[in-house]
């Protein structure tokens, strides 16, 4: 059974992420221990609340470095909600700009829509090549957020597989999910998205390379 570590940096309700990953077929560990995070087949980066609080929390446990190290080694990471947002260069909340992890270029800004937060079940527009959305393309997923990345600014490269982008719409178009090599992210909460969310997590778990120590 693949093992997944949830990066614990004091961000909100990680219990449901733990249960959903278990339901999707993973062995789950909640930890901020660097050795454990590097040894896991997959790491989930959760995040709720404010952008700056999540960045501070993550840095305070050295989680940004662990993610860098994993990605440098091609080891999968899945970021959820504000966990996804802080992967970008910066976020602006209440007029204050906070530096993010800069895994991807771009800014996270307030959603312009008649009703915010964007709260509830929405559809997504995904590419046929998506692994995460295999078999669940037409399902709805549970979103709850007031900010989002609305542009994809990573320059295309002939040497890299093109990132798979999934979009949604609430007042304006925004990124609902990204699959970029070892780094994946969803703006919605798969752990709160019922059977469709579990299926998405299972799709991700199925992409995890098995650890050599786990054997056959």
């Amino acid at each position, binding site marked *: 059974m693949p093992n997944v570590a949830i990066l614990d940096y004091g961000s909100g309700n990680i219990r449901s992420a733990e249960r959903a990953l278990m339901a999707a077929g993973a062995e789950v560990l909640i930890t901020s221990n660097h050795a454990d995070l590097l040894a896991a087949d997959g790491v989930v980066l959760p995040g709720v609340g404010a952008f700056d609080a999540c960045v501070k929390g993550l840095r305070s446990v050295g989680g940004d470095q662990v993610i860098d190290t994993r990605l440098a080694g091609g080891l999968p990471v899945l970021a959820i909600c504000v966990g996804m947002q802080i992967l970008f260069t910066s976020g602006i909340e209440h007029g204050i700009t906070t530096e993010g992890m800069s895994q991807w270029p771009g800014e996270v800004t307030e959603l312009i829509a008649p009703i915010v937060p964007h*709260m509830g079940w*929405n559809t997504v527009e995904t590419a046929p090549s998506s692994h995460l959305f295999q078999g669940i393309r037409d399902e709805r997923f549970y979103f709850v957020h007031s900010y989002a990345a609305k542009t994809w600014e990573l320059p295309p490269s002939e040497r890299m597989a093109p990132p798979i982008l999934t979009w949604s719409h609430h007042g304006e178009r925004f990124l609902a999910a990204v699959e970029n090599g070892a780094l994946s992210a969803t703006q919605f909460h798969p752990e709160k*998205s019922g059977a469709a969310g*579990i299926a998405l997590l299972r799709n991700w778990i199925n992409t995890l390379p098995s650890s050599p120590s786990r054997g056959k």
Partner: protein
Amino acid sequence: MTLAVRVIPCLDVDNGRVVKGVNFAHLKDAGDPVELAARYDLAGADELTFLDITASSGNRGTVLDVVRRTAETLFIPLTVGGGIRSVDDVDALLRAGADKISVNTAAILRPSLISEISQRFGNQVLVLSVDARRNTNSPSGFEVTTHGGRESADIDALEWVSQAVQLGVGEILLNSMDADGTKSGFDIEMISKVRKRISVPLIASGGAGKAEHFVAAARAGADALLAASIFHFGEVSIGEVKDSLRSAGITTR
């Protein structure tokens, strides 16, 4: 792409047990909130709300235990309300597995509770529950009540929701104390007045008696529709409500 209108069953929980019977077939234990939560998830509920009505504050632990056990099996959002008076209460519930919490009387008594909670956890976790009723002496024609609608809080309902959104609530749960229990439909006028005043999601509650009532409330601008007894007693199923909404051209999950 359109956001689906949410349908939300609400369970009253007292000392860890569901009060008001629930009439699902083949329930092992009709008073077990955990089993009922799973059944409502299967029945197509978009979220679930627990209202903790435990009178004794010494027994607050029981709701935490219920939330913890429910979070083991529920993969849709769970809101918990009732008796929340402090940031620490919120912290304990979120850690136990709640996704959102709702405040009511404590926020009326001390509005700064709203900003304290939203600054710590973000406004997306915080629902303001408002028990409102018609009163021609109130500027908007609707006033806020306490004690289950028995007492006036001497606050105008529209003023209160506006102020609460400013202070940092992420969603409004609007209960009509006039319509509550009548099964004659939601208070449509109140829903549309509140909808026009605020830009956060609005959950309508009180008065649901048949599937068509939900359609009228959604048309009046409710983003989500909450009901208790008609679901529990099996008078209308969540599926029937969603069928009616869809027939009326309203998006559902």
